[in-house]
């Protein structure tokens, strides 16, 4: 995450300021600076929030899937225990007291079966949860990747214009276009961030989510 961000930042610094001896004309300086700020913000969100969240989601999905398997195994174990209980009702029981206990064992075995069903329901809920987490983690990864690629593209385009020494108006227009693209990318990213993203951004930043 940090490496990605450094790489992105390095790209903008090297491609835009340090990589070229050409100083942008003052008429384009302001749009380019705005575009650069926007790109930097996009990169910050992608690298600092979306990618960590996606990585955490992938790990969590693995954990949830494992829990789902465990829950299903528990359900199977509990079903086995119900079978054991039913087997414990000796067929030869004849006395009145024994008949009473046979009925109670029957009822209890039924309850244990229902317990097993509850565990299976939990397993299903966990599987659904894991699938959703996986989908959203993948979406975040895609969005973050796209944002970082877009940022690199925008900054590269601006650097090219400056390096080519194009007319100031053309450079300025291109810079506006680049800024618009970057802003659109940011909006798109924020739309990708699910409900709770605001707090999750804060959580990522303060380290409570890994």
């Amino acid at each position: 995450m940090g490496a990605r961000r450094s790489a992105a930042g390095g790209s903008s610094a090297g491609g835009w300021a340090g990589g070229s001896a050409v100083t942008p004309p003052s008429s384009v300086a302001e749009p380019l600076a705005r575009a650069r700020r926007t790109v930097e913000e996009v990169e910050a969100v992608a690298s600092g929030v979306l990618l960590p969240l996606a990585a955490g989601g992938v790990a969590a999905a693995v954990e949830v899937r494992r829990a789902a398997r465990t829950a299903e195994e528990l359900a199977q174990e509990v079903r086995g225990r119900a079978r054991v209980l039913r087997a414990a009702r000796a067929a030869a029981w004849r006395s009145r007291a024994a008949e009473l206990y046979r009925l109670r064992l029957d009822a209890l075995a039924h309850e244990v079966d229902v317990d097993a069903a509850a565990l299976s329901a939990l397993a299903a809920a966990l599987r659904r949860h894991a699938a959703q987490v996986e989908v959203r983690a993948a979406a975040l990864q895609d969005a973050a990747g796209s944002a970082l690629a877009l940022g690199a593209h925008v900054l590269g385009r601006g650097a090219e214009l400056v390096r080519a020494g194009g007319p100031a108006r053309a450079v300025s227009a291109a810079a506006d276009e680049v800024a618009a693209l970057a802003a659109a990318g940011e909006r798109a990213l924020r739309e990708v961030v699910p409900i709770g993203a605001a707090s999750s951004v804060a959580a990522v930043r303060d380290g409570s989510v890994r």
Partner: protein
Amino acid sequence: MTGEASAAPGGRGAGALLPGALDEVLGAGREAGGGLRVRGGAGGLVVEGTAMQDAARSLARTGEGLLVVTAATATAGAAGGPAAAVLDPAGAAGVQQATVVALARLARTATGCARLSALLTAAGLAYAHAEEVAARAGDGARDAVARAAGGAVGGLVRSPEVVVPGAAAVLAAVTAGGLVWVAVRGGGLVGEVGDDLVADLADGRLDVRERGLVADAVRDVPVRLEALAGADLAAAGASAAAGLSGAAAQHPLLLEALVGGLPVGLAAAVGVAGGPTARRAVRADLPGGDRLVWPPADVADLSAAVSVLATQDGALRPTRVRVRPAGPPAAVAPATGVADLLARAAPLAGGGALSPGGRGRSAAPVLVEGVVDAAGTRRWVLVLPPTQTTADPRSSATTNPADLGSDLRAVGHVPSAASRAAVRALEEAGARPGDPLLLVGYSQGGIVAAQLAADPHLRSVARVDAVLTAGAPSGGYDVPDDVAVLSLEHEEDWIHRLDGERSPATPGRTTVSRDLTDAGDLTGADLRRDGMSGHDLSRYTETAALVDASEDPSLVAWRERVAPYLDAEGTTATRQTFLAERVPAG
């Protein structure tokens, strides 16, 4: 016995008085179709109590397991943490809801398992408790009978009508189940406590006061038994003079009542200051397997003590046994069921051509069948003879090991020429250690079968798998739990009561009772004419056929246990008859 006494609740229909579950423990047993009543075995009450406790343990494990599952579920429900919740808040909420539902359910069920486990444990213990109550009542009742019967028995044993030539035979007959009297009479009284007690105990519904009432009711049993014993003894005194066996068959309580006070009576008769109050106790192992315990604690001790003086094969008259094949092994059809197995004892019964009844100088036949199943596994069926001669058991002229002496020794739990001959025949037939073995015996054959099943030495010859007895006083033998014993007993047959021990209603011991009078097979006139009618092998074979047809779980389980010994596709059998006779030792 008077007509009034015959109609007393302790009569041969005593089992009918016992309701439900306690009937299993104390009475003649549960109904099993065809007029049969069954106690013990795989479908018995003790098994039921054991199964309850097994179920209780299973429930406890389930409850503990569910608690572990609960903890694991809580962990699973928290999976993903804030990261997953941020990305899929709705999904996280769904998981949380499902987790709460599962946790609440699991906790409730785990608690239910623990509660039911505790109740089932109590229920299993309650059945055991019911048996303990019966045992305590039996102990008290036994003392009461001894007090009431002691003097009367002393008089009877000394009376000229009873002390006849062959006194040992009379003693053996008198050793006829005083404890069973307690079981029958006492069972009727204790049974009044009822099945509801068991159910209430099982459910934990009895409070302290109610338990006290139950205890009071049980404490009253010996007092009431004492009164019953007095009435029965009066009837017994009148009947004994008319003929012991006939009276015994007419009044099943006769011999049992006599034996209740036998230790005191015997001591009085022989002028020995013995009995339960003897100051000097003797306990000794003697040569020849004899043992001497005085004063005797039970009928087995008494029979063992009498055996020392009154039989061969022991310390005073040691013998050897010679066993020879009567012919080569011959192919036979494997037995088809319980009745067919028991029918194999028919050629050995009643003296037969091989050994006429009453003649002591003869040999006893022993049948050994080798059964090979389709897989090539060999099993053995050993059919043991009933009493073949009533000759003087002390005389060296009595060479037939199936004599009254072997009866007495078997009831006394000491080895005899008959038991040694059976083992020798099995060895001669080719049995090897570990070979599965089914023992079949009618009357004396049944006692010896139980004796062999309980004898650890036989395991060096074969592995006893199952035992079938008919009309045999074999209840006192402590047969290992892994041996399936099926005992057939007719209510009118007093022979099977001779050891004074009731077959325990354990998982390994299944006892089938049949009332021939109820079935219309016998009348009071029949019994008066012939006191041995209830002991007839052909009637036991009919009873065995009813066992074959019964769906009682204990009987079904026993039949399944012996199925490998019976006729099946690819199974073959060979039979060899051996003749056994005593020869002087040395």
